[in-house]
């Protein structure tokens, strides 16, 4: 039984309540799952105009080399993440993940090079473990500083640039995955052109004590509405993005999860800094030879949503179990249910028909290319 009194609150908690949000527990926080508009409208608002999300529950942490040389911090992070961080230029960020000795995923994250240190954003549910992981493995060579006094807002949608440009003129030349220090209403913010919605947008780290002021200022704009976690989930699923704990976890490897793109050449066999991260042997071998199963998009043929944990079968009678759905919901832009799950690599070809068990019936689904909705990132 969840005791609301023990749930943590973000700096925008009072604002959510005042906006009539339905609050639910998520990763130990009391968070808005939807506002009075509802999940469907909030989802469509984000795709058609602009939505503001409170993602302050996520972890923000700085990694700074004790040597004073930022390349040392990059190399330190590379010992935990199979990405090319040394090659990440200042003012740029990159998606990555912590791996474990089995070659599976401990958490997924964003890493930004801020010139003289790295700024890392991790999932709320893993942040304490992630901070401990960083401290344990990098604490000697790097100062690890969790930013406990900052909020994180996401402004997503085709009108996000127009909205933010009213507060700070120079954002229109930011490209997807650029990171900058900007001032909004005289408040120093870290802004990246990125997000979790599949739309163009920005993620804005602000001091906690100014978060409500900034959020209210953004919400005053006629193009902006508040968006809850319910729509955040349907947006990211339509965009084919993984949710840690659902689609990726300590039982999935990056290649199984179809995340090869996040492991750049420098870290692969033949690369300048091949391996050197936990689970490298398995991951490098899977990068060369493939993995036995793969995360794919799944489109139910009918109208019934197929949710996470639904079992997948090769046949309509449910005789041969082949995998599991890891995320599933209704996609307002896809105009029907959408899902992701793991199937044997041999069945991962787009167009393959498989069956999901839902309430005792075996519903046909078709393996579909991800994303379900074309992203509009400003590359």
């Amino acid at each position, binding site marked *: 039984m969840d005791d609301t009194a023990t749930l943590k609150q973000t700096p925008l908690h009072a604002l959510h309540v005042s906006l009539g949000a339905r609050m639910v527990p998520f990763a130990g926080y009391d968070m808005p799952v939807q506002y009075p508009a509802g*999940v469907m409208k909030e989802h469509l608002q984000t795709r058609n105009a602009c939505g503001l999300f409170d993602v302050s529950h996520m972890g923000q942490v700085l990694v700074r080399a004790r040597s004073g040389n930022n390349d040392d911090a990059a190399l330190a992070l590379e010992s935990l993440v199979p990405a090319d961080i040394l090659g990440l230029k200042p003012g740029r960020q990159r998606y990555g993940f912590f791996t474990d000795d089995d070659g599976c995923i401990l958490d997924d994250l964003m890493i930004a090079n801020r010139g003289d240190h790295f700024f890392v954003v991790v999932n709320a549910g893993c942040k304490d473990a992630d901070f401990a992981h960083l401290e344990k493995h990098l604490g000697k060579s790097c100062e690890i500083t969790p930013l406990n006094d900052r909020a994180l807002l996401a402004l997503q949608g085709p009108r996000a640039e127009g909205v933010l440009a009213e507060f700070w003129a120079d954002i229109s030349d930011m490209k997807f995955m650029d990171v900058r220090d900007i001032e909004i209403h005289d408040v120093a913010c870290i802004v990246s052109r990125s997000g979790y919605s599949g739309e163009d947008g920005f993620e804005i780290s602000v001091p906690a004590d100014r978060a409500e002021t900034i959020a209210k200022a953004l919400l005053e704009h006629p193009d902006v509405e508040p968006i809850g976690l319910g729509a955040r989930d349907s947006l990211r699923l339509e965009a084919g993005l993984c949710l840690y704990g659902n689609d990726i976890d300590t039982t999935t490897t990056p290649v199984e999860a179809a995340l090869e793109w996040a492991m750049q050449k420098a870290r692969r066999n033949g690369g300048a800094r091949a391996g050197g991260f936990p689970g490298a042997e398995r991951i490098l071998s899977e990068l060369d030879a493939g993995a036995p199963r793969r995360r794919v998009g799944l489109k139910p043929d009918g109208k019934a949503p197929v949710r996470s944990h639904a079992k997948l079968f090769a046949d309509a009678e449910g005789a041969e179990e082949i995998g599991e759905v890891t995320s599933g919901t209704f996609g307002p832009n896809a105009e029907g249910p959408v899902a992701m799950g793991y199937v044997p690599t041999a069945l991962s070809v787009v167009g393959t028909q498989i069956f999901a068990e839902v309430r005792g019936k075996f519903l046909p689904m078709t393996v579909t290319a991800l994303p379900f909705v074309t992203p509009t990132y400003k590359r």
Partner: protein
Amino acid sequence: MLKFTQEHEWLQIDGDIATVGITTHAAEQLGDLVFVELPDTGATFDKNDNAATVESVKAASDVYCPLAGEIVESNPAIVADPALVNSDPMGAGWFFKLKLANPADAEALLDEAAYKELIA
């Protein structure tokens, strides 16, 4: 005669036929509906059997048969457009019509005042 159940269904009873739906309160709690599965005509249920399923964006919920009876009609409009349940739960968003096995059992259900108290 309009009756209600503790599981947030309403029944509009005319002789031995009850039109059944979910209440405004239930529809609000569920949020935007995206899928409805209704029973076949001719199916029989006991009181509290699972008769239908609704899915919101986030989760599935069961709709129970409020009294024993036989389905004489299901509402295709809400299968085609589940949002109708959210926009008009007490009217056009009805789920099914039930021929009651024991019309007298309806007396034991909640009247409107009692239901309003339940959700207060």
